[in-house]
């Protein structure tokens, strides 16, 4: 593909090059309260934090295009996978910050702190994507979780937000506890926290009770982050209660971080020991397959009865996580490629939907299906964007959601590059396709409300331009990933190959 010379970056930044995208965002996070204190202009603070994300993203894209790989003292590894994931988190942060500026829901008091928290969380996600050690990953996850609790709680006047924040902290604490317990068990069994070394140690050990407990607690602990059923109960409350830009950040970013952890820990571990421990690997594959099937089914079925669009989108996010979990069950490079592709498609389609929701709340329209009636006449552009995003989520071609589902579901039939068709996971593909059919029903309810039902008000909806820009960017992503997947698919497969041993 594209080949560009990036040696000047490595020459300038030396050993910190692998963590450069993360460091830039951290610098931004540290400066943000000061900048707000000096300038006291909400929009300027927003713009400066956006600038930091953009600069970090530019460097990250350059590193990605230059096929850079490097490690920072063995702690952080930058490769095609972590680079692509950092790009995803930066895209999420960009959209969230862009709409947080004009949104009426975000805090008016602690503006500097808000953007600082968001940047710290973004850096934390990059931290997780590059880390190659269980403890570092744990620290990275906490670096995302703690700012997230604060961001949810910052919508002070809404009692739902306080409830959501308390719920989120309690569940988050439980999940951290479970995870660190599992990590300590694993450390006791293998004597290391480095994932590659753990895998090497497990290849010679069989199943023990300790290992079962360690894996179960870690799967559950990070399962809360992904909101995989049955660890999903907090997600709808939190997404509904939080300010919509924060919900967007959690649903598209934080959830992906959980998936990245699953990939970095379990995918890597079991792909490595697949040959040495076939029984152990296969049993874990089935655990993930059942987890995926339950998650997508629960998410889709519960979404049907929701009347609040934000809540409906929250349940739909749960279902979408179920699709992406399929990669861990199938455990092949092609499945991982499909899942990575899906993650990006999900950022754009779910991001676009949340941007529209945020815009409509700011414009005073509301967030229930009832409020959306007749919206097509009042806000034609936003309605069209919402239409494309939800049709993409339902997997209707030629949008990103379809293409992504196509790649991911096909991996359930033909697992790996050049491998024969396998009948092992075809049932999972059936469950996933059936779920796509169910999901169309509630997505169609949103479209029906906007385009077909008549609303009480005929007044045009006016939204700040930043919302329109963010929504258009998302929808361009949805169309581009849907119609011309080839170049992007290449980077996804490079990322997947970087993960394979």
């Amino acid at each position, binding site marked *: 593909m594209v080949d560009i010379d990036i040696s000047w970056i490595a020459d300038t930044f030396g050993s910190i090059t692998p963590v450069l995208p993360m460091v830039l965002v951290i610098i931004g996070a540290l400066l943000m309260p000061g900048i707000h204190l000096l300038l006291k202009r909400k929009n300027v603070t927003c713009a400066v934090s956006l600038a930091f994300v953009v600069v970090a993203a530019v460097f990250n894209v350059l590193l990605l295009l230059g096929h850079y790989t490097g490690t920072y003292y063995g702690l952080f590894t930058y490769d095609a996978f972590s680079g692509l994931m950092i790009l995803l988190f930066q895209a999420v942060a960009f959209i969230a910050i862009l709409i947080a500026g004009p949104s009426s829901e975000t805090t008016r008091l602690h503006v500097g702190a808000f953007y600082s928290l968001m940047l710290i969380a973004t850096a934390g996600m990059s931290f997780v994507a590059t880390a190659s050690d269980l403890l570092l990953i744990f620290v990275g996850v906490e670096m995302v979780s703690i700012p997230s609790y604060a961001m949810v709680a910052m919508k002070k006047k809404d009692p739902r937000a306080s409830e959501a924040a308390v719920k989120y902290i309690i569940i988050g604490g439980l999940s951290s506890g479970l995870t660190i317990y599992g990590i300590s068990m694993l450390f006791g069994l293998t004597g290391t926290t480095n994932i590659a070394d753990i895998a090497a140690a497990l290849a010679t050990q069989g199943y023990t009770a300790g290992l079962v407990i360690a894996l179960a607690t870690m799967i559950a602990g990070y399962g809360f982050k992904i909101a995989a059923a049955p660890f999903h109960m907090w997600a709808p409350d939190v997404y509904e209660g939080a300010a919509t830009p924060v919900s967007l950040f959690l649903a598209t970013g934080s959830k992906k971080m959980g998936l990245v952890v699953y990939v970095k820990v379990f995918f890597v571990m079991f792909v490595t020991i697949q040959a040495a421990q076939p029984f152990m690997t296969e049993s874990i594959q089935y655990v993930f397959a059942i987890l995926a099937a339950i998650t997508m089914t629960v998410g889709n079925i519960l979404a049907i009865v929701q009347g609040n669009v934000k809540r409906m989108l929250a349940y739909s996010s749960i279902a979408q996580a179920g699709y992406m979990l399929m990669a861990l069950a199938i455990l092949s490079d092609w499945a991982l490629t499909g899942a990575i592709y899906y993650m990006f498609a999900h950022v754009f389609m779910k991001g676009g939907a949340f941007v529209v929701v945020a815009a409509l709340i700011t414009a005073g329209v509301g967030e229930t299906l009832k409020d959306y009636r007749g919206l097509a006449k009042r806000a034609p552009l936003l309605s069209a964007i919402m239409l494309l995003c939800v049709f993409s989520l339902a997997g209707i071609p030629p949008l990103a959601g379809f293409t992504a589902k196509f790649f991911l579901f096909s991996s359930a039939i033909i697992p790996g590059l050049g491998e024969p068709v396998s009948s092992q996971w075809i049932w999972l593909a059936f469950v996933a396709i059936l779920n796509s059919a169910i999901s169309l029903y509630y997505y169609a309810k949103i479209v029906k409300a906007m385009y*077909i039902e008549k609303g009480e008000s005929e007044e045009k909806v006016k939204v700040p331009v930043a919302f329109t820009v963010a929504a258009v960017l998302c929808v361009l992503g949805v169309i581009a990933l849907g119609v011309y997947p080839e170049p992007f698919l290449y980077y996804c497969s490079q990322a997947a190959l970087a993960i394979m041993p």
Partner: protein
Amino acid sequence: MFDEIFAEIPILILLLVIPLVGAVATLFMGGERQKYAKYVAGAFSGVTLVLAILLMFVDNTALLSENYLWIDAANIRISFILEMDGLSLLMVLLTALLVFLVVVFSASESDRPNYFHTLIMAMELGLMGVYLSADYFLFYIMWEVTLIPMYFMISWYGGPRRHYAAIKFFIYTHIASLVMLIGIFAVVFEAAAVNPGVIADFSFAAVNAASGSFGEVFQVLVFGLLFFGFAVKMPAVPFHTWLPDAHVEAPTGGSVLLAGVMLKMGSYGIIRVALNALPDGAIWWAEIILVVALISIVYGAYACIAQTDLKKMVAYSSINHMGMVMLGIAASLLYVKYAASPDASIAQIGIMFAVFQMFAHGLVTAVLFMVCGYTGHALGTREIPLLGGLAGKLPAYATFMMVGFMASLGLPGLVGFWGEFGVIFSFYVAAEAMGMIWLIVFCLLSIMLNAGFYIWAMQRTLFGRETTKIDLSHVHDVSKAEGFALAVLCVIIALFGIWPDFALGYIETFVANFAIPGV
């Protein structure tokens, strides 16, 4: 002479691009400009029609093909392949013709006409795509592209129960498409699996090349998936329940395109995809296809008699006529399965006339739905018991209705006759090979019922004493635009009725290259 020109320009791509540009252009014609949307749509659909007609004069033994690589991943190859043979040509011609005439017929549409025409043009894009694509991925995308405009067409411009009908149509056919998608996955990946080292290529050609190595059980199972997907679209009893609702609520333009060309996607899919990719599966399923076809024929015709709504009656007659298409396909398969030494040229007859019946039904049903549409908006009701004696007051309307009804019931000299005649002939041959000639009784029953309900309906609406149940004092005969669209169709119906070979010539070149399963 056109061959050289077409060698230079990518005409098949143009058949997709022109409707797309038309859809986008009309989409942005809001406000004051929306009354000009019909001219823009007319121009774009007219150009498409001209291109489609020009294609008829290409040396028809040659296969037009345009091939662009789309996605070339490590283990999946998806191409943007458009191919045109005799079957595609007839369907493309039908699509272009009906879309143009629908635009003309709907000239008086005053409720948001720009979006109406956007939907029509978007549908044309999807339909052209389905009939031209030679890659499973593209085929599926185009298949779904036709769905969304039709959903909005029904739910924006439809009758009183339009929301229910639109959502029922959307979900019913979308689920069928997903089942078809599973079938597509299966054939593509099985094609990759039987040839180790070959990547999964989504083109029709790659799958057809490998179809000889598919296992028997696999073929039977996957044919079931594909057949379900296509049969819902056709629609075949018992998967037909979305059709009457969708038709009754859809606006006239939507109904014409739905019955005229969208139903053909189902039978087109069976012939183009299922028979080619899974020949053994098709042979195994032959009896089931026959039973479904016979039930559709008899049930469709029988249900027509019970209808009091003119449009609902026509909708049910579509089930009957599409059943005839399926019967033609079943006849070919059964002849091959049961004849002692099957002759390829006889086996082709069923498929050949099934295709002709698709073409004929598209033309005839367009007339019928236009007539029903006129009845609904001019007289305010389509209830047959409320009508009567309209021939005196509305002579042009009565003429078009009679031509449509006569063509639909299979009067010799009109296009409908040849389709039914050929299909029943091929079925007779197959029934003879099976040793069950008595099965032909169902066809005779269908012919009788068809003649019965059409003539009865005509008698009650057009002849007898002029109705007093509705106010006819302000009713005018069909407008110039409506009359033009109907007259063009009636002329074509008569033309192909007298000279069916004009269409059969294209079908012959298609079936000559078509591998009938088992021969």
